[in-house]
C-alpha cells in the first residue's frame, strides 16, 4: 500500500496523516497539488485544512486546482480516495461525492469529540466495521452536510451514507449532531464505494496517547487493502 497525501495551499492535516499512517506501517508521500501525479499510488488522502483559506466556500477554490483534476482521474480509474474535513469539502465541491457542506448550524467552529456509527461496510475504509460506534474528533466551521431530498433518498437507498453522528448509545439524536447535518450525516461514499469523505479526523485519534485510537481502525482498513510494510519511523 502506498498512499499519496494531497497538499493544497492551506492544507494542514497532511503531516498528521503521514504520521498516523506511518504508525500503522503505511508508506505515504505528501504531494503538492499543482504538480500532483497519482500514478503508482494505491490510495489518495485529501486531508483537512483551509485550502485557499476556505474563501468563498470551503473547498471552492481547491476545486479548480490541477490537483483536483488529477484526483478525479485517479478516482475514475478506481483509485481509493479518502477525504477528511476540508478533504471531504473539496470532494463534494468537485462533484466526486454527493451533497455539499455549509456553515455549521449555530455558525460556530466546533472542535470536540463526537460519536460516529459506521453505516456502510461497502468501502475500503470501513470493511468489518459495520455498526461499530467510534469516537473521533471534529474541527470545522462548515460541516453541515446538505443535499436535496431526491439525492438524499437515493443515497439512503444505495447505502451511501457511511458515518452518522450518534450519542454514546448509538442513537442519531439532534444533541449528538454537532453541526446540523441532514440526518446526522458525518460521511458519505460515492456509488462505486472507492471515494469516501467524512468531517471527523481519523488521523487525530490513531494513538491512545491522544485520547483514543478509533481512527486507527479506519486507517487500518486501508493498510490491509494491500500488504503493509514495517512501521515507518517518524521525527518531528
Amino acid at each position, binding site marked *: 500500500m502506498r498512499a499519496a497525501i494531497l497538499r493544497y495551499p492551506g492544507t494542514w492535516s497532511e503531516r498528521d496523516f503521514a504520521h498516523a499512517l506511518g504508525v500503522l506501517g503505511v508508506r505515504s508521500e505528501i504531494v503538492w497539488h499543482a504538480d500532483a501525479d497519482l500514478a503508482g499510488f494505491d490510495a489518495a488522502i485529501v486531508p483537512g485544512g483551509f485550502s485557499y483559506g476556505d474563501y*468563498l466556500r470551503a473547498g*471552492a477554490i481547491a476545486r479548480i486546482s490541477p490537483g483536483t483534476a488529477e484526483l478525479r482521474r485517479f478516482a475514475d480509474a478506481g483509485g481509493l480516495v479518502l477525504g477528511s474535513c476540508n478533504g471531504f469539502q473539496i470532494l463534494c*465541491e468537485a462533484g466526486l461525492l454527493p*451533497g455539499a457542506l455549509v*456553515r*455549521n448550524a449555530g*455558525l460556530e467552529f466546533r472542535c470536540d469529540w463526537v460519536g460516529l456509527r459506521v453505516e456502510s461496510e461497502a468501502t475500503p475504509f470501513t470493511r468489518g466495521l459495520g455498526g461499530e460506534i467510534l469516537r473521533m474528533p471534529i474541527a470545522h466551521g462548515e460541516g*453541515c452536510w*446538505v*443535499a436535496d431530498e431526491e439525492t438524499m433518498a437515493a443515497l439512503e437507498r444505495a447505502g451511501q451514507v457511511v458515518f452518522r453522528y450518534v450519542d454514546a448509545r448509538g442513537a442519531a439524536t439532534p444533541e449528538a449532531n454537532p453541526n446540523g447535518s441532514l440526518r446526522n450525516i458525518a460521511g458519505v461514499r460515492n456509488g462505486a464505494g472507492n471515494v469516501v469523505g467524512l468531517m471527523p479526523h481519523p488521523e487525530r485519534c490513531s494513538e491512545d496517547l491522544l485520547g483514543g485510537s478509533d481512527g486507527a481502525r479506519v486507517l487500518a482498513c486501508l493498510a490491509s487493502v494491500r500488504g503493509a510494510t514495517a512501521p515507518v519511523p517518524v521525527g518531528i
Partner: protein
Amino acid sequence: MTAFVATIHVRPKDEVRDPQGEAVAGALRALGVPVDDVRTGKEIVVRFDAADETGALEAARRMGDQLLANPVIERFEVQLGRDGMRS
C-alpha cells in the same frame, strides 16, 4: 477592450438550509424585529476587461458557473455595468 464591473449575486437555493440566515433571523427577533424569514447570500464585485458587453456577460456567467456558485446548493445572477472608475 472596455472596463466592466460585474456583480455576481450568489444565493442559497430555496430548498437548501441556510444556517447563517437562521442565525440572523434569531438575532433579529432577539433585537425585537419580528422577521418572517432571512436568507443570506454573497455578492462578488469583479472589475475586468472585455471586448464588448456580450463578451463581458459571458465571462461573468462563466465565473459564476466555474467558481463563484456551487450549483448543488446555490444559484447566481449577474448584474453588469461599465467600470467608470477605470475606463
